[in-house]
């Protein structure tokens, strides 16, 4: 398999949309405010869910604001930067750390064929992760809170001749901030694969 860390050379990659965590994001999770299954996340506590990135990384908002701590808060309400493409933006360097800090829920209800589970009602519209099957070979879905997200699909049970693991990205935001039901399968980034 290829070296998935090469994207660090440029700080850019072709991940799917993640408008909840960009520098201009308005829904970047503040771990101190997110509550999940009765457990409160605190900024300086390690995530209770297994982190997908280095454990010593700082929470997302600290990282986001490092470059410009005086950045006005209203900047966060701007649509995510999309560059020259509608569905691409540069993710933050601590993408994996953010995934680890997201509140997690167990999958509930029956999902329809070919569709990731919808947002969990207890997340109240905030970014969160739904663990469908734990572990590297399992499956989880991340909702960024605005209709976009992705589903990681590990090896799991026999699945035919498609490559695993893979990631199904859903939702995309145009330059005008309009969400489309864009979906695409891509290879997973290293920090999206559970360590297990």
């Amino acid at each position, binding site marked *: 398999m*290829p*070296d998935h860390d*090469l*994207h660090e050379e440029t700080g850019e990659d*072709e991940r799917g949309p993640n408008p909840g965590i960009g520098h201009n994001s308005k829904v970047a999770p503040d771990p101190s405010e997110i509550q999940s299954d009765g457990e409160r996340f605190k900024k300086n506590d390690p995530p209770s869910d297994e982190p997908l990135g280095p454990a010593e990384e700082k929470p997302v908002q600290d990282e986001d604001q490092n470059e410009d701590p005086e950045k006005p808060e209203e900047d966060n309400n701007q649509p995510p930067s999309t560059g020259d*493409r509608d569905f*691409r933006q540069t993710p933050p360097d601590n993408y994996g750390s953010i995934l680890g800090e997201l509140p997690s829920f167990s999958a509930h209800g029956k999902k329809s*064929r070919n569709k990731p589970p919808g947002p969990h009602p207890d997340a109240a519209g905030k970014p969160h992760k739904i663990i469908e099957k734990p572990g590297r070979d399992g499956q989880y879905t991340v909702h960024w809170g605005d209709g976009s997200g992705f589903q990681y699909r590990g090896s799991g049970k026999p699945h*035919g001749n498609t490559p695993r693991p893979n990631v199904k990205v859903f939702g995309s935001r145009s330059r005008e901030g309009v969400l489309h039901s864009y979906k695409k399968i891509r*290879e997973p980034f290293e920090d999206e694969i559970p360590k297990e």
Partner: protein
Amino acid sequence: MSKLASSSFSDYLKNSEGPDLNFLLYLKDKTDDAELHEDFCLKFLELFSPTFRIVEGHVYLAATFDQAEYDAKFQRLRSFSEVQYWLNLYEITYIFENMSVQNAMQFANRLATLWNLRIEAEYPDALGRASVLYDEEQQEVFVCIKTEEM
């Protein structure tokens, strides 16, 4: 669009009158009912007979190829075959979400055959041919242009 999806071909044959009922009349009636824009029909034509583009000797669909996405993916994967694989995954069960897996497989097989006929005719030396992929767990059917090694 709902009218188009609401009547199967067998229902059409059962409920219509006339000695020369066939799939062409079914298409005509349904497209008339749904008041489809002519672009919709032309895009179907593009699906069945697309224009291909050759990049580094590998086949891509011209209409969906994006140079920036290609560059970013190649920087990570460092393999022409892998980049081709991931950029050329087209999920039939996503494009036609209401289609059964069985029909999606049939559709994908015919589509792959058509694509390969055109690739062979226009770019016989280019790398990559259309194949059908099926994810049993997810119930997803794909057509993918890829090399044999993938």
